[in-house]
C-alpha cells in the first residue's frame, strides 16, 4: 500500500526570491494508493511541492506528512519515496552509463526490482551501455520513468519525465503505471498528468472499446484519482478527478444566444473559465453543471452543451488569461 500524503498550509520561500513565496498556504490530502495529477504552469510551484514531499527541503511554514510522519530525515519514508524528473532525477555524472546508474540505484533503493527494471529496459529499448549524456530527451525520459517504476517506491513522483516520452513509450508507461497502482497500490503523483498525445490516443482507444470491459484498460481519465492545480504558488483546486469531470460545462453556439442563455441559466456573474469567439460563434466554459431541463432548453436554442474534458478544465484553471478573455480566437 502506498503512503497517504497530507499537506497543510505549506509555504516555501526562497532566498532572494522577493516577497512572493514559491508555495503559499497549500493544503490538500492524497489518500494512500491514489494517483494524483499535479498541474500548473512553469513557476507554479510544482517541483517545489514535490521536493518538499521527497524531503529534499524543509517547508518554510506549514506541515507535510507522509504516512502520518514528517518525511524530512525519516529513513523509512525517504527510502520508500522516489522523485524523478526530466533529467533522470539522479544527479549522476553525465558520463555514467545507464547500467552503472541502475547498479547505483540497486545499492541505495531497498525496493528496487531488478527484474522489473530489466523488463522496462527492454520495453523502452534503453541502451544500457550508453552514457547519460548521449541520451536524447526521450531516452532520458525513458530512463527516468524506468527508475520511477522499478523503484517500487510507495510514494512515487514523476516531475514531467513521462511528457518527454515518445507516444509509444507514453502509452507503455501509462499501462505499466496503471498496473503498478492497481496491483501494488502505490501512491503516485504525475506532474502534468498523462501527456496530451497519449491522452488523445488513449481516448480514441477508449472510445472504440466503450461498452465493454476493455474500457478499464484504455480510458485515460481513469488513471487519475485526484487532481491538484497550482497557480503562482497557490492552490487553485484539489479535488477528486471524478468531481472535476462534472464541474465544468461548455456552451457553444451563436454569440447572442449563448450570452442570453448564460445570463438566464447562471445569473449575472457566472464563473467563466474560458470565453472564445470565432466569428459569430461563442464558446464559453463555465463552472457548474446544467440540470437536464436547462440543457434541453439550451439545445432548443441552438446551443451545444457538453462536459469539459478534465485536461481542458485543468488548463482553464491554470491559465487565467483565458478567463480574462485575452485568448479569444478570432477568424482572420
Amino acid at each position, binding site marked *: *500500500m*502506498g503512503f497517504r500524503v497530507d499537506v497543510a498550509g505549506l509555504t516555501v*520561500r*526562497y532566498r*532572494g526570491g522577493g516577497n512572493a513565496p514559491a508555495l503559499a498556504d497549500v493544503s490538500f490530502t492524497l489518500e*494512500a*494508493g491514489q*494517483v494524483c495529477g499535479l498541474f500548473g504552469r512553469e513557476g507554479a510551484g510544482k*517541483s*517545489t511541492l514535490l*521536493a518538499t514531499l521527497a524531503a*529534499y*527541503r*524543509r517547508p518554510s511554514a506549514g506541515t507535510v506528512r507522509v504516512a502520518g510522519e514528517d518525511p524530512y*530525515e*525519516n*529513513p523509512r519514508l*525517504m*527510502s*520508500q519515496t*522516489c522523485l524523478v524528473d526530466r533529467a533522470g532525477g539522479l*544527479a549522476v*555524472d553525465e558520463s555514467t552509463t545507464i547500467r552503472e546508474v541502475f547498479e547505483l540505484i540497486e*545499492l*541505495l*533503493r*531497498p525496493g*528496487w*526490482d531488478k*527484474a*522489473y527494471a*530489466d*523488463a522496462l529496459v527492454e520495453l523502452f529499448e534503453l541502451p544500457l551501455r550508453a552514457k547519460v549524456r548521449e541520451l536524447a530527451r526521450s531516452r532520458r525520459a525513458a530512463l527516468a520513468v524506468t527508475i520511477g517504476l522499478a523503484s517500487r517506491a510507495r510514494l512515487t513522483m514523476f516531475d514531467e519525465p513521462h511528457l518527454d516520452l515518445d507516444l*509509444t513509450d507514453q*502509452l*507503455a508507461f501509462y*499501462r*505499466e503505471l*496503471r*498496473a*503498478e*497502482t*492497481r*496491483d501494488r*497500490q502505490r501512491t503516485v503523483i504525475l506532474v502534468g498528468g498523462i501527456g496530451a498525445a497519449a491522452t488523445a*490516443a*488513449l481516448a*480514441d*482507444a477508449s472510445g472504440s*472499446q466503450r461498452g*465493454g470491459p476493455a*474500457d*478499464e*484498460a*484504455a*480510458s485515460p481519465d*481513469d488513471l487519475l*484519482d485526484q487532481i491538484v492545480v497550482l497557480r503562482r504558488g497557490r492552490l487553485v483546486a484539489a479535488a*477528486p478527478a*471524478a468531481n472535476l469531470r462534472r464541474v465544468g460545462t461548455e456552451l457553444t453556439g451563436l454569440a447572442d444566444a449563448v450570452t442570453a442563455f448564460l445570463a438566464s441559466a447562471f445569473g449575472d456573474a457566472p464563473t467563466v473559465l474560458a470565453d472564445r469567439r470565432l466569428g459569430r460563434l461563442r464558446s464559453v466554459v463555465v463552472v457548474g453543471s446544467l440540470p437536464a431541463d436547462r440543457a434541453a432548453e439550451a439545445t432548443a436554442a441552438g446551443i451545444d452543451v457538453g462536459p469539459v474534458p478534465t485536461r481542458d478544465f485543468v488548463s482553464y484553471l491554470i491559465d487565467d488569461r483565458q478567463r480574462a478573455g485575452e485568448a479569444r480566437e478570432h477568424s482572420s
Partner: protein
Amino acid sequence: MTGSHQPRPGEGRLSAGSPRPGPNDRQGGEGGQPHASASLPPAGQITATAARTRTADGKGAVRRAGGPGSPPSLVNASIVTTVGTLIWVGLLWLALAAIFGIVLGIVAVAGSLDSSLWQSGFSGWQRIVMFAAGYTMTSAFGPILIGNGVTRSRLAGAATVTMVVLALVGGLFVALGYTLEGLVFSALDWPQELRGGQRVDGISDIVRLGFAHVGLFTCYFAAGRLVGIARGALGPDEFVLLIPPALIPPAVAELFLIHDLAGLPLIGQVNLDWVPSSWAVGLLVSLAAAAVATVIAHPASRAITLPIGRQPG
C-alpha cells in the same frame, strides 16, 4: 472502468506471484487502434514478467539495498561515496604517477636534483585534491544519495568512511612516491631532502611522512566537507562566511605537522619553535581537529537542501 481508479484490496496479484490477470488489461489500447500501441506488449505484461522472475526461485528479487522497508545501509552508502571518489582521485593519481615517472626519468638522464621532486611537484598539492573530495560529499554525492532516499545523516556517515579510506590510501600513495623517488635518488647518489632541509632517510622516514599525510589529508577533507555542507545548507552566498572557520582543521594540521611536511612556506619565516616536533603529536592533533570537524559536520548535514531551483529561506 468508469469510476475513479481506486485501489482494491486483494488485487496485489503480482505480490501473490500469480500471473497478471485480465485479458482486458492485456488488450487495452490495442484492438486495431491507429496508434503505435499495436506494437506494445499487453498492458502490464512486463510487470507480470518481473513478478514471475521474482517469484520463480521463491527468494524474491535481488535487494542488495536491504528489505523493502529498510533504508539503505551505511555500507552501501559508503560504497557509493568512496568508490565514486576513488574513481576520479585514483585516475588523477595514476596520471600523476605516470608524469612523475617521466619527469624523473628525464631529470635522471639530463640533469641532477638535490631535493625531493615528489614533494615539490607532486605530493604537496594533493591536499587540495582532498579538500575538493570533501566538498563533493555534499555537492556531488548529496543529490545522488538524498535523491535516492538516503538520509542526510547516513550521507554524513558515508562521508566519514570515505574520509578515512581516502586519507589512508592517500597517505599510502604519498609514501609510495617517496619510496620510488628514494630508490632512484639512491641509485644516482642524489640527496632526497624535503623543502625544509629534512633528509628522507630510510623506511622509517617514509612511514612517518605517510602518516603525516594521513593526518593532513584528513583535515583537508574535513574542511572541504564543511564548506560543502555550508554551501548546501546556506546557499551560494551566505556560505562564504563559514569558509574561514572551516579551514581551521587544515591550518592546525599544517602547523603541527610542519616539521615533517615542510609543506607551507612558513618554515624559516616565523618562529615555530614552540610547535612540538614529534610527528606522533602532530598526527594526533591533526586527527583531533578532523574529528571535531566531523562531529560538527554530522548534525550540520541535516540542513542540506538539494539544489533544486533556488535555496529556500
